[in-house]
């Protein structure tokens, strides 16, 4: 299975995402932001970082990158797409996911490992988990405070689209939302970094479950 990782000029978790993709036995493919070509990948990850310095608003400038045109087509066509941290911010700016990520309530950057509950395993990015399973995943962001209009939040809850929920909310997000999916359930955005929890030497590899899900989803052989 080929998994593409989009590289924006200010991405800084791209190497980690590529590394994690390798760890699950998939083939990592670098997708340069300036090339409108997904190179035939089966799934796409928008990694964390500060795509354009996060100037103006995180993800605001990145969403207009050349790579985003084919990516939007891919996502709207049902292609498994995961946005992590800045990638989540880009997906909301691109309207592939509803809502927005505001500055943390503390007004501070926060880097911390927090318990996160998997609410719904019926997406390409959570299928390897059992409902209610608790993963310990790090967050590292300044704007992770998920916000959407009341109706939107209600709709997300009703339709089971809150995929990951904080047990200890690090940023003030509505309903402790850590990650959501689109109506078609193929596009997932999450603030915690599963790719960072990908090696027992660094403490745990719980995060790989999130990424392995896409292998199961694709029916590929799981390593």
């Amino acid at each position: 299975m080929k998994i593409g990782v989009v590289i924006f000029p200010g991405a800084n978790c791209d190497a980690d995402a590529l590394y994690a993709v390798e760890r699950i036995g998939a083939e990592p493919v670098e997708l340069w932001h300036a090339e409108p070509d997904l190179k035939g990948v089966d799934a796409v990850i928008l990694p964390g970082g500060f795509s354009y310095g996060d100037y103006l608003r995180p993800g605001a400038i990145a969403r207009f990158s050349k790579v985003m045109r084919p990516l939007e087509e891919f996502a709207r066509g049902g292609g498994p797409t995961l946005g992590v941290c800045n990638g989540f911010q880009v997906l909301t700016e691109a309207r592939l996911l509803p809502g927005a990520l505001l500055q943390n309530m503390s007004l501070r950057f926060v880097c911390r490992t927090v318990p996160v509950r998997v609410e719904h395993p019926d997406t390409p990015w959570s299928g390897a988990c059992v409902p209610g399973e608790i993963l310990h995943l790090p967050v590292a962001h300044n704007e992770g405070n998920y916000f959407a209009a009341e109706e939107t939040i209600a709709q997300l809850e009703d339709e089971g689209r809150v995929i990951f929920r904080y047990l200890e909310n690090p940023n003030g997000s509505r309903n402790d939302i850590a990650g959501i999916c689109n109506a078609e359930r193929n596009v997932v955005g999450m603030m915690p970094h599963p790719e960072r929890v990908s090696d027992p030497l660094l403490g745990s590899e719980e995060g790989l479950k999130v990424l392995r899900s896409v292998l199961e989803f694709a029916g590929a052989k799981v390593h």
Partner: protein
Amino acid sequence: MSETLRRVRVLVRPKEGILDPQGEAVRRALPALGFGGVGSVHVGRLIELEVEDESQVEDMCRRLLANPTIEEYEWEVIG
């Protein structure tokens, strides 16, 4: 070319009812500095730019400078 440039000022602010942690922080900090009698405080963005064609500004605001989910904007030509 520069003769034809117009200066435009764009004000972007959190939409009504949207959480504004920065504004809230400023509001809370003021009394400690001895400033009493302050009501609401909102913090937004100021963008000043020079453009050749001011008919593009509306579009710039909608597509890039503001995020309509959380922000509202206004703009004017200032020079």
